[in-house]
């Protein structure tokens, strides 16, 4: 394959490789369990290599521009095109998708949750990866929506079949909530289409064309208010923003480990990414009007989640609620409509994906040993029975609470800085945002509080006799392999945040310029 056709096809190949792999796996006989797990790892390795090559060949000097573009006819009758590409904003999330996908495949090589059915499990996971990755590279609204919804069905089954006791309820709740939000989003997209620019006598779903149109004030003010609301509803449910978050703790608590990892690590980012990529630049007036409300909901989410975490008895549910808080910081950053705020948001998305993904891996492995997730049943003393596991758990929890020098720090601090100086050019109220900042600051203290308290109850103290007698195996080889990359990233991103911030800078600048007008 020569250079230019690779440039054109790289994204398509990488995005659809997992789904093609899922089809291959369907052909493998059910009883070849080992082979299926192996194939899962091979397919995800290839896909990850694809993503890595794209990241390597990407021209970071032009990170604000779309690269690796492919733009082809798809459904001419309704004006939808197959338009994919990648820029600085998409890149970190795209790569993260494949990294977590690969680590999950490796983890699955050892752990397939009850009731087995490895073939379906691996195939659905691969389908999920394609859907999530596609969302970050789609530059046509219908294509975006299709990828967005493609995620629903496999995740539903992952929770409903491989989940824990209350899985039926949690899975249908997840499905209905997200579907409800996303259908309004679809109507919003259609409204953008029909009121949007006309190219060659036809309307267009092309995101770049719509952004250019929206940036120059193409959409009327009241129109933006309504349509921004509809589209934001779809994104907000996915993030999830308070008060649309109630599906999340249920879904996380019931989901199998890698379901939780992918859910927290990537799927939630689809919502925040949607705000940055679509809602803000296409409807700048709407963004300005809604920003204070989004900021307020974000501030509430931060404190609410922290308080909820303090009350949790189930370890996994606690981590799930902490996600709500972290996504609150991300949304607060976006709501400031400043470069630093949105930079913080994207950094926060990646950091949360790495750290919370890792936390869910850990909770899964802890459950695998103790067969309980109740903090009271674990009863402390993990550093006694599994010193390495406990050490890593402490490291990741501290990263999650935002200790400087680790990845969790930058997203939070920059979001708070952003709300100290929100975008006043568009008329955001400084006093209000400083109040958000103070609330967020209180949230960080509470966050530190519940994480430390959690560590105290799980790691410290005397281990109950039954666990000591039981004797656990500390971290296994497969766990090391799937965790080390995340642990390393936690440290590297903490020390060198510019790795991400430099990539996203010019894309974010462009968004902020559009919003500022």
């Amino acid at each position, binding site marked *: 394959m020569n250079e230019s056709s690779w440039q054109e096809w790289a994204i398509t190949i990488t995005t659809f490789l997992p789904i093609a792999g899922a089809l291959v796996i369907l052909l493998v006989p059910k009883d070849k369990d080992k082979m299926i797990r192996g194939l899962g790892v091979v397919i995800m390795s290839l896909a990850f290599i694809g993503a890595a090559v794209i990241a390597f060949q990407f021209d970071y000097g032009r990170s604000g521009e779309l690269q690796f573009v492919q733009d082809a006819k798809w459904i001419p009758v309704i004006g939808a095109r197959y338009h994919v590409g990648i820029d600085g904003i998409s890149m970190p999330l795209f790569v993260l998708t494949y990294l977590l996908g690969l680590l999950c495949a490796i983890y699955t090589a050892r752990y397939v949750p009850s009731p087995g059915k490895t073939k379906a499990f691996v195939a659905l996971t691969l389908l999920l990866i394609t859907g999530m990755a596609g969302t970050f590279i789609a530059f046509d609204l219908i294509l975006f929506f299709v990828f967005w919804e493609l995620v629903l069905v496999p995740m539903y089954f992952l929770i409903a079949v491989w989940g824990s006791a209350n899985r039926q309820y949690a899975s249908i709740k997840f499905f209905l909530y997200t579907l409800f939000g996303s259908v*309004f989003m679809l109507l919003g997209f259609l409204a953008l289409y029909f009121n949007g620019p006309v190219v060659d006598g036809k309307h267009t779903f092309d995101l770049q064309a719509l952004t250019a149109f929206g940036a120059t004030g193409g959409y009327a003010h009241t129109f933006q208010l309504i349509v921004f609301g509809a589209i934001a509803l779809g994104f907000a449910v996915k993030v999830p923003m308070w008060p649309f978050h109630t599906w999340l703790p249920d879904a996380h608590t019931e989901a199998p480990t890698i379901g939780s990892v992918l859910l927290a690590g990537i799927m939630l980012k689809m919502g925040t990414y949607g705000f940055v990529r679509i809602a803000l630049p296409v409807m700048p007036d709407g963004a300005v009007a809604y920003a204070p409300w989004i900021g307020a909901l974000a501030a509430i989410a931060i404190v609410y989640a922290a308080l909820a975490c303090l009350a949790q008895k189930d370890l996994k549910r606690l981590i799930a609620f902490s996600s709500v808080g972290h996504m609150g910081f991300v949304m607060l950053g976006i709501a400031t409509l400043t470069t630093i705020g949105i930079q913080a948001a994207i950094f926060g998305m990646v950091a949360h994906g790495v750290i919370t993904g890792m936390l869910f891996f850990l909770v899964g492995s802890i459950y695998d040993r103790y067969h309980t997730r109740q903090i009271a049943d674990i009863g402390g003393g993990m550093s006694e029975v599994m010193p390495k596991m406990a050490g890593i758990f402490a490291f990741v929890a501290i990263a999650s609470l935002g200790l400087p020098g680790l990845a969790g720090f930058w997203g939070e601090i920059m979001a708070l800085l952003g709300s100290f100086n929100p975008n006043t050019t568009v008329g955001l109220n400084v006093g209000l945002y400083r109040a958000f900042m103070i609330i967020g600051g209180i949230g960080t203290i509470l966050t530190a509080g519940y994480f430390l308290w959690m560590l105290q109850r799980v790691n410290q103290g005397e281990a109950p006799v039954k666990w000591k007698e039981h004797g656990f195996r500390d971290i296994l080889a497969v766990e090391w392999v799937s965790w080390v990359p995340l642990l390393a990233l936690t440290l590297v991103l903490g020390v060198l945040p510019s790795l991400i911030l430099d990539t996203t800078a010019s894309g974010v600048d462009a968004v902020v310029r559009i919003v500022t007008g």
Partner: protein
Amino acid sequence: MNIDYHALLPLEILGATILVVLVVDLFLPRRAKAASMWVSFVGVVASLGAVLSLVGQGPRVAFGGAYVVDAFTLIFQGFFLVAALVVLLISYRYLRDGGFYQGEYYFLLLTAFFGCVLMPASRNLLMLFLALELVSAPGFLMATFRKSDIRGNEGGLKFFIIGVLSTAVMLYGMSLIYGLTGQLELHAIAEGLTGLSGARETLAQVGILFVVVGFAFKVSAVPFQFWAPDTYEGSPVPVASFLAVASAAAGFAGLLQLMFVAFVGQWEFWAPIFALLSVLTMTLGNLVALRQRQAVRLLAYSGIAQAGYILLPFALVSGDAGVNQSAFTAAVTYILIYSVMNLGSFAVVTAVSERRPSLRIEDFAGLMKSAPLLGVAMTVFMVSLAGVPPTGGFMGKLGIFSAAIERGGVGYWLAVIMVINSVISVGYYFLIPRAMIFEEPPAEEVRVRVPVLLGTVVTIATAGILLIFVHPNPLFRLGELSSLALGG
């Protein structure tokens, strides 16, 4: 009069087949009665060939404009004949093993499909009426084919009484239109109806309303829907699939002709009526479906809800020809997609009914394990009916949403209502997949053998639904092509 026999060839072949089936049955030994199916099958395939032979030859007109062969006609005729093949295949084992009169059944079924095939080509009121009755009358008989079943009798009788009543109302409406305009041909009616005022205008509106009532019954729109669940449940399952798919689609084919051609000038009067019909139909269908625990009744109410979706594009008609075109395309496309997924789910239900005639939701327990093909297929159909990607049903709904937003104004509200309805529908469309996947099959049914014919139908329909999602353009093109009939 010079008659274009080629234009009529599909009907000629089908008509001849009907007669052959009727006669052949007399000479078949009792054990071999099922052979009628194969005779019918060959006839329908030949008729389909005749339709294909007419493709790409430009419009043909017969009987002085009463019968027109254009893109719209060919698409619907092709569709009805394929549906006929599917219903025949679904019927085969059900009828043979169920102790039914088979020759008569296939005769009636083909006659009803004769009406279906006639419908899209009919371009005057008389022909439309004839076609509609040809679909309905055999339907009444087939609905009561389970003679010993009290529910079958009840359902058939309801169907008959309501059907006859609505036919009478419709015929009265047609006579009013004819009286006002002196025309039967649809384009001529459209001209005749323009510029009416005063009492004559009111009379025209009454006429339109009555005609709409007749068709509303056919497509089971609220408030003319209440025959549907009882009739479907009482009928043999293949007959229910015919009623839900072919009969309803024939009703829509006629309605499209009437509303988009003959009565289009009066849209200000009837578009709001359709808006109301659509909203009531989808909402009531969905809400009642939530409470159903029997598969055929569930599909019946789902069919009512889906009829509401298909009625929505009618409510979008306005003076804007571009929007009308989109609405027309959306309706045609949705009808085609809906039929595939609905026929598919009825095929699965037929397969299950062999072992479990009561067809409660519990009877589907563990199907994913005992018959993976049926399990996967039914899941795909239900997800598709709910309109969730990655299925064809999503593309169908996208077309309707898109037309509604393009219309603007009332279109926004209708789209929002349909969106909420779609979410509600997930509540019951997931019932069957849930039973199939998450519950254990009864101990004696570790492995269920799927009949070859049914298996083939189900596999093709599943592949079709997924394919429509990946590559929807040909189907949308069909929908768009068919609206060329608007010009001619």
